[in-house]
């Protein structure tokens, strides 16, 4: 026994010594690891800087060749003609019109869906419906583009023959379907966070569920609903494949939704996919358009955050 405890004591001493050395090693790791992790975390900041730097530096080169005023006020976009003209207004026009069509579809339907899920549906029904709706958001946009081009457009043209084979209407509608789940789920979050005491107060005064919805819940959740709209529009502005496939590449400056129009994103695909030689004005126009797109979506995203913070009701 004595010998045993003797050897034990030695072992402990050795262990302590060993641990001390080991501690030094792990002290070193503990000093180095935060630095490494910090550098990894900086990658996301570098990505942003990279995006802004590439867009800005190439766009500045573009504005050396094409005056910035002409770019933002020009209604004619003819990058490939003999006397190329670079007016971005046709693209902005197409982008805004398609996004407006999308929000006209997704806004009302999204809100009604949110109302149904948060005010009317039973827990069980909500738990089945919500994941099914979320599938809509997970479908790749190329699939929606295919659907808009090969199904929705022919159906529309069967009813209204005047609609062109590529038009802004059908991709707009399908983009609307795509952003329904986003608007529905953000609005539902806003509505479920309205405290029940407010609903019960209205109920006690004799209001029906419908009256509670329109006079209590929606006003109280308005900031969340508006910010979901803004985010939905931002998503529609940045959406690419649906419009690239189904809305054609005519650079029309028109408000006629039956016609083909091009959006900023579709222009980028067209020019980058074609062979715009590096260094040509067309090549640089890519970055000027992308910069405009980036600023548009960034402003919408900041606006959404501002609205939901500024006008949030505190309970």
């Amino acid at each position, binding site marked *: 026994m004595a010998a045993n405890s003797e050897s034990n004591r030695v072992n402990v001493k050795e262990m302590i010594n060993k641990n001390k050395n080991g501690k030094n090693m792990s002290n070193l790791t503990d000093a180095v690891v935060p630095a490494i992790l910090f550098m990894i975390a900086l990658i996301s900041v570098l990505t942003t800087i990279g995006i802004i730097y590439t867009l800005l530096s190439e766009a500045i080169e573009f504005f050396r060749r094409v005056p910035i005023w002409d770019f933002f006020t020009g209604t004619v976009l003819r990058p490939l003609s003999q006397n190329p003209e670079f007016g971005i207004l046709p693209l902005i026009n197409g982008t805004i019109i398609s996004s407006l069509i999308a929000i006209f579809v997704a806004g009302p339907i999204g809100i009604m869906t949110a109302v149904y899920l948060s005010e009317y549906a039973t827990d069980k029904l909500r738990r089945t419906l919500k994941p099914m709706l979320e599938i809509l958001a997970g479908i790749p946009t190329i699939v929606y583009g295919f659907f808009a081009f090969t199904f929705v457009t022919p159906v529309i043209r069967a009813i209204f023959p005047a609609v062109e*084979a590529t038009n802004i209407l059908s991709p707009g509608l399908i983009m609307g379907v795509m952003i329904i789940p986003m608007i529905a789920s953000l609005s539902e979050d806003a509505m479920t966070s309205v405290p029940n005491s407010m609903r019960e107060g209205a109920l006690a005064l004799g209001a029906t569920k419908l009256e509670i919805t329109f006079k209590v819940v929606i006003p109280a959740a308005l900031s969340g609903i508006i910010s979901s709209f803004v985010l939905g529009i931002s998503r529609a502005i940045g959406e690419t494949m649906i419009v690239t496939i189904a809305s054609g590449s005519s650079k029309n400056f028109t408000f006629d939704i039956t016609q083909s129009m091009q959006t900023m994103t579709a222009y980028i695909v067209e020019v980058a996919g074609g062979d715009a030689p590096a260094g040509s004005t067309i090549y640089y126009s890519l970055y000027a358009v992308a910069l405009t797109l980036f600023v548009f979506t960034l402003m919408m995203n900041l606006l959404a955050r501002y609205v939901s913070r500024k006008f949030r009701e505190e309970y």
Partner: protein
Amino acid sequence: MKYVDASLVKKRLNTRLLKNSLFKSLFFLATLFGLVVLAVLIIRVVTQGIGWIDWNFLTGRLSTDADRAGIMGPLLGTSWLMLVVIPVTLFLGVGTAIYLELYAKKGKLQSIIATNISNLAGVPSIVYGLLGLTVFVRAMDFGNVVLAGGLTLSLLVLPIVIVSAQEAIRAVPDHLSEASYGMGATKWQTVKNILLPTALPGILTGAILALSRAIGETAPLTVLGIPALLLPFPEGLFDTFTALPMQIYYWTLDSSLVDEYAYLASATIIILLVLMFLLNAIAVFIRNKFQHRY
């Protein structure tokens, strides 16, 4: 009883209740609208494409002849892309999440990084394509190869991975890491031995969902100039490639010239959707299996 006339109240209440139930049905129909479109889309794609899927379609080479065309090339291209996206996003995403959750001091820098990540999530995917084109394809001179495409997609889905990894790490109960510190473990030992293994299911779930998003992304690839030609199969990170969504894109565009291409596009969409469905199923499986096991 001067103030309340029961019959009058009842009469009014009836119309109000009727309105309520009418609107309830309207709201329900609105909820169904998206699902109906989804059903039409899927039925349409499946009925068009299912007949074209056979062994030859899965393993054959691309061909302009619709009857002989196969999608082995795009399938391999997509697999190669995933071989880049998985390790890169896991490494960068989990690293960033660990830093933000466990190491960063609550201060300006940390809030800059966090705000930046939420802004990055809102940047259109096509802008990432331009970043990839400028940085990876041209500046680093990779060309439009697997590595350039994979890195571009990694940066694109990085915010999703970071946010879900942060949530997974936050969900690990404090007493686990406290016990580890109590045993004399250092911070990194605690992270490596306790926090990461416990958070792993959550991290994997988020990573798989990000991956299924990356599989379907088309816009950045079109900007990188990824072709859909009759290419030799990609065999490494520096080979040119094509991917499933790119193939769908070209077949859809050309379907106005050759009718059969629409069916080929449908068949490829089925394969793509099945892949995404499998990935999502794996994610759900991991989440259910490992939920609350500490």
